[in-house]
């Protein structure tokens, strides 16, 4: 299979989605288009120019843009609203968690809102307190939203295609530090179903459940520990809602040790929820306490050494794996 960069896979998905379905409209700053401030962002321009009526730059109005996407979805389009930095989704919070998430339920199943909200989450280096959020756990507290966290070139393409095809509002949380990752991507129209976890690395000693960019970081750690004879299994849920808990649990039952790595804060984060479920369903299988590696419970500091210190770093992941094996 050919290998391409993550950002190329993402752009390929957008191109193919736009070509295949004229209901798809991208509400995005056409100068950054789904790639944030990354150096690759100029590559989006060609897509914007090809579809001037379906790739639209909104004013700096996250609330109205997200609401517009929801309303357009209710009326038959498949809008993808690019909120850019995940911290900005708070500007649109009432529309995302109180309108989109509730629409199907409170209408008694009458109204579908197949909108996609795209954000770039997480610590990106110098984002400081207001541009570094990972809102996936907060979103998980709003039933009605599908939550997607791609981690590889193949996944970003296949999951993005599924995101625009499902009938539910979906938050697609991408991560800017993934853009240069290279990996195999099939040339066909592969769609990766939601609710299907992926074992990114097989191993027998300890399970690492990781999301988004933390998958790549955990794989790096796993490769390093392999030289010490520690065999790490890395499992990526890929979507939190729906969640393929069975695959996560099966891995934990096999290795009987688990470390969960996610960029949410420790308290009430994704790792906290997964740890609770594992404790409820697999406590008797565990040989060691569940370990969490998350962003520490403080606002994100600007200074780079401080940011690294509070992040779920390779060092902290390594340390947690060693602790789980003791």
């Amino acid at each position, binding site marked *: 299979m050919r290998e391409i960069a993550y950002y190329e896979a993402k752009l390929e998905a957008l191109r193919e989605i736009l070509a295949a379905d004229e209901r798809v409209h991208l509400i995005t700053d056409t100068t950054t288009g789904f790639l944030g401030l990354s150096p690759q962002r100029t590559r989006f321009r060609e897509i914007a120019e090809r579809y001037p009526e379906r790739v639209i730059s909104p004013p700096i*109005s996250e609330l109205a843009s997200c609401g*517009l996407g929801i309303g357009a979805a209710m009326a038959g389009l498949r809008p993808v609203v690019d909120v850019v930095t995940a911290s900005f989704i708070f500007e649109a919070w009432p529309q995302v968690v109180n309108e989109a998430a509730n629409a199907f339920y409170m209408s008694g199943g009458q109204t579908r809102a197949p909108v996609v909200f795209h954000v770039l989450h997480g610590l990106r280096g110098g984002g400081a307190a207001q541009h570094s959020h990972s809102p996936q756990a907060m979103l998980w507290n709003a039933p009605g939203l599908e939550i997607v966290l791609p981690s590889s070139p193949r996944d970003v393409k296949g999951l993005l295609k599924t995101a625009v095809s499902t009938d539910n509002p979906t938050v697609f949380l991408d991560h800017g530090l993934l853009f240069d990752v290279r990996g195999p991507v099939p040339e066909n129209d592969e769609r990766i179903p939601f609710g299907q976890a992926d074992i990114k690395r097989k191993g027998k000693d300890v399970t690492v459940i990781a999301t988004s960019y933390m998958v790549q970081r955990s794989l790096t750690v796993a490769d390093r520990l392999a030289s010490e004879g520690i065999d790490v299994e890395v499992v990526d849920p890929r979507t939190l809602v729906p969640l393929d808990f069975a695959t996560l649990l099966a891995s934990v039952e096999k290795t009987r040790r688990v470390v969960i790595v996610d960029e949410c804060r420790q308290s009430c984060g994704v790792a906290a929820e997964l740890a609770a479920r594992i404790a409820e369903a697999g406590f008797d299988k565990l040989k060691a306490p569940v370990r969490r590696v998350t962003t520490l419970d403080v606002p994100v500091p600007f200074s780079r050494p401080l940011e690294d210190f509070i992040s779920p770093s390779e060092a902290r992941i390594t340390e947690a794996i060693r602790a789980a094996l003791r």
Partner: protein
Amino acid sequence: MLPTLNREQLMDLCRRMFRIRHFEEKLILLHTEGRFSGHYHVYIGQEATGVPALSCLGPDDYLFTTHRNHGHLLARGADPARLLAEILGRRDGYNKGKGGTFHTNVSALGFFHTSAVVAGIIPLAGGAAYAAKAKKSGQITVCLFGDGALEEGAAPESFNIASLWKLPVLYLCENNGKYGRGRAVGAVRSSTMAAYPLTDLPAAYKIPAQQVDGVDAGAVHGAVSEAVKKIRQGEGPQFIEAQTVRWPGSESNWPVVPVPTDVSLAWDSSAVPEAVKEWYRESDPVLTFVRELVEGKVATREEIGQVEEKVREEIARAVEFALASPYPELETALRDVFA
């Protein structure tokens, strides 16, 4: 004044106004009896806005409304029985008991989503209009909200986008605060808005905006039909502020009926308590419309009385239906989270 419509159409407006009035007066009674829980809002006093305004729309147009939705749904032809069942939380409600008074919507009538968050629908209405424009379907969207919605940031953000992108949307702002707090100076202001008159806000975004007397069915019909025509011609969004005088029964947080409506009150207000007499004489849109029908020789008092009687019977059947409808099965609470 009467809308420029034929007799049959005018009598249909009359029927729909009575339907709203008697539905909600009955609803207040049901709440007093403890038949449903939670806070709720009524549309009484605004019938001559919603009914003629919505009669200007086509069957495929989209609508978004708020916590004060009963009047809009009934004006558009919703079944009072299923609406009431929803408000009582019953299985046969339009939303299977999951929406209630705050969120009743009927997608078959073009109401996709009813938000009880002030201004929650204003961004959505722009979206539906955006979709119609993209599909070149000719449909327009009507966004119905109260004056307080203009105080939320969602309003100006959405006006900006609708104006920039020339979206086919009518913002119909129902200001039920005429003579409210500003009564002494005759001001039309129920909220705290620096943009005053309220039309200043949409006008700042270059959206044509006008005020209309919301008690005057003819004025509402004229303004809305003209605005709808312009929107369909591709001129972009329009804004209308319809001013009504708040119904005295809605002045407290929990509505009360000062006097049950009867067509006879249009000519003889002796049964109306003194404290609210002025409203029923001067500002009641239903009684005003009824008087105009008689003065315009469209119908006799007796003919209007017959229309009202039929509506009363219909509402009585709706109450019977709703009370007989069972509560939903408990496990349905876990369904319809995802499509």
